[in-house]
């Protein structure tokens, strides 16, 4: 089959730009990246349909002259799906902005905890639980409460939410 070089280059550029934007922190940029990525992939589908031909309507063109209609149907479906997702991500970015005043993608809770514990040089809860968690019945030790330390990252440790 023959492929259209221009289309391939445009698709590649668009996918590359999309991936670059997706590595950003701001959800809006990630969204634009996703849109570019999906446009690039849709162009790939168009490349897959081979050379352009006439409209695939019976009686208007001979089957050999027609362009392949299937990838176009696939592209339409993909566009609709991307549209829905774009709307959803926009809503999520807005909600994020409402809650936090920005739309940055935030780090994993656990990552932040690990980083904070490392900075404070404190063992994790699981270590404490395994070391001291299994009290025996006659274990009457009194545990001293260490002095309060400022929390450098903020009290985002637990997502108390059910």
């Amino acid at each position, binding site marked *: *089959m023959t*492929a259209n070089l221009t289309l391939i280059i445009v698709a590649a550029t668009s996918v590359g730009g999309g991936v670059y934007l*997706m590595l950003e922190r701001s*959800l809006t940029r*990630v969204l634009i990246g*996703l849109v570019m*990525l*999906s446009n690039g*992939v*849709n162009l*790939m*589908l168009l*490349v*897959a*349909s081979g050379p352009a031909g006439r409209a695939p309507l019976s009686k208007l063109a001979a089957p050999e002259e027609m362009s392949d209609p*299937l*990838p176009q149907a*696939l592209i339409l*479906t*993909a566009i609709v*799906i991307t549209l*829905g*997702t774009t709307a*959803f*991500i926009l809503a*999520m970015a807005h*909600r*994020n902005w409402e*809650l*936090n005043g920005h739309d940055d*993608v*935030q780090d*994993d*809770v*656990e990552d932040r*905890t690990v980083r904070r*514990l490392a900075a404070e040089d*404190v063992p*994790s*809860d*699981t270590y*404490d*639980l*395994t070391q001291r*968690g*299994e*009290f025996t019945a006659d274990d009457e030790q009194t*545990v*001293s*409460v*260490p002095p309060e*330390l400022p*929390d450098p990252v903020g*009290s985002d*440790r*637990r*997502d*108390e*939410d*059910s």
Partner: protein
Amino acid sequence: MNLLVPLPVILPLFAAGLNLMLHRRQVAQRVVSTLTLATVVLLAAVLLVLADREGPQVMWIGAWPEPLGISLVADRVSALMLLVSATVTLAVMVFSIGQGMTSEDTGTPMSIYHPTFLVLVAGVANAFLAGDLFNLFVSFEILLFASYVLLTLGGTGPRIRAGTIYVVVNMLSSMLFLASVAAVYAATGSLNLAQLSQRLGDLPEPVALVLQLMLLVTFAIKAAVFPLSFWLPDSYPTAPTPVTAVFAGLLTKVGVYAILRTQSLLFPDSPLQGLLLGAALLTMIVGILGAVAQSDLKRMLSFTLVSHIGYMVFGIGLATVAGFSGAIYYVVHHITIQTSLFLVLGLIERRAGSSSLLRLGGLARLAPLLGVLFFVPAMNLAGIPPMSGFLGKVGLIEAGLEVGTPLAYALVGGGVLTSLLTLYAVAKAWNLAFWRTPEQAHEMVLSLRSARDGGARDLYERLEARDLPTRLPYSMTTSTAALIAVSLGLTLAAGPLYGYTERAAEDLKARVVYVEAVLPGGSR
């Protein structure tokens, strides 16, 4: 031609629409959802019997001439997956109805929950039935879209945070899937799985390898196979419990099913079996080490979920009849057990107000029934004989020994080690949450600097304040107990079930059965 085949997809979709119209009438919504899901269970059971007796059931949508339209296929594997997923979703639906009726939790709008849940069910069913690659893509999108909504239900801060990562990761994998669809179409001119299974063999090896890798990476993201698993333990725990339960049970398994289907049907003599086996080993070990290190039960279970995906990929990577059969049995076992564990966690959260091991203690005395409900599936997950977890692992280990390569031996060792570490993780959770007294837990938490921020009270303080519900709604406990009974039933029915999965695995290995059923004329 079988008109029953599309019904597991169509019925939930219609019910979802109906539920949207009934959004002011909660009782009507509950009735519609429960009845629909119960019907889907029946349909799936009928399809299972038909597929086992008469071979794969095929339906060409829209009555196009045969290789052109969209086909839905229910063969032995699909029908079994369909039945298990329908059973699990029914149990979760009953559970969530119980949860919604008694809680004043405004963070979970139930009127949206019902239609979205049904759309999710339709998407999962469509993924199991899809007979072509693009239909599989669309069903992934259906179920993912429903899952985006369910995961961010209520739009609270943590859910939005977790949802962002989840949506972006899944969008990326969907784009990769679409790119693979384009590449497959460009290389072969078809997307029908049966046709592809004939045409892909004619391709030059490097081209087929690229296609296989693209599809594998796509599905590995969905199935949370290491190193593509990091999104899962971060996003699942923040959702409402029934949602986490159904996600944990079903969504990753849809990815596993897609890997199984494409590996067995499209790339039977795959050069990537070593890669799959290596990924399986790392998934098991890294996942379970993550689980051991967690102090929150929800996160711990999410990590065991990742870890046990490794077992299924192990079976698929072996690519023998015994391997496939073990993997299918393990999927069935794991769907029921992982879902019931998350449901039990929902009960614990309701009864004790927290799922963190730092704040729990003395549950065995406080709620003995809860202890039983947690203990049985937890031991099942760890693979204590004679439960289904043990049987599934034995099946896979036997399949590994039968293959007998050094890598297969390494996986057998890894599987045993993972099983032991799972036992360690759940036993630790049991000791902390159920065995020690709330006073001890309280003393512990006071001595831990890290646990005191966040301001949440622990079980001891809550007991002192007497603000905990003393009994749990019946529909929550009975649905959980029913699901656990089903998982125990997998032990009792292990003989016939293994016979069935073996026949399913032989079909997968032979490929002819599927191709002949979809394209009777053998059209290429």
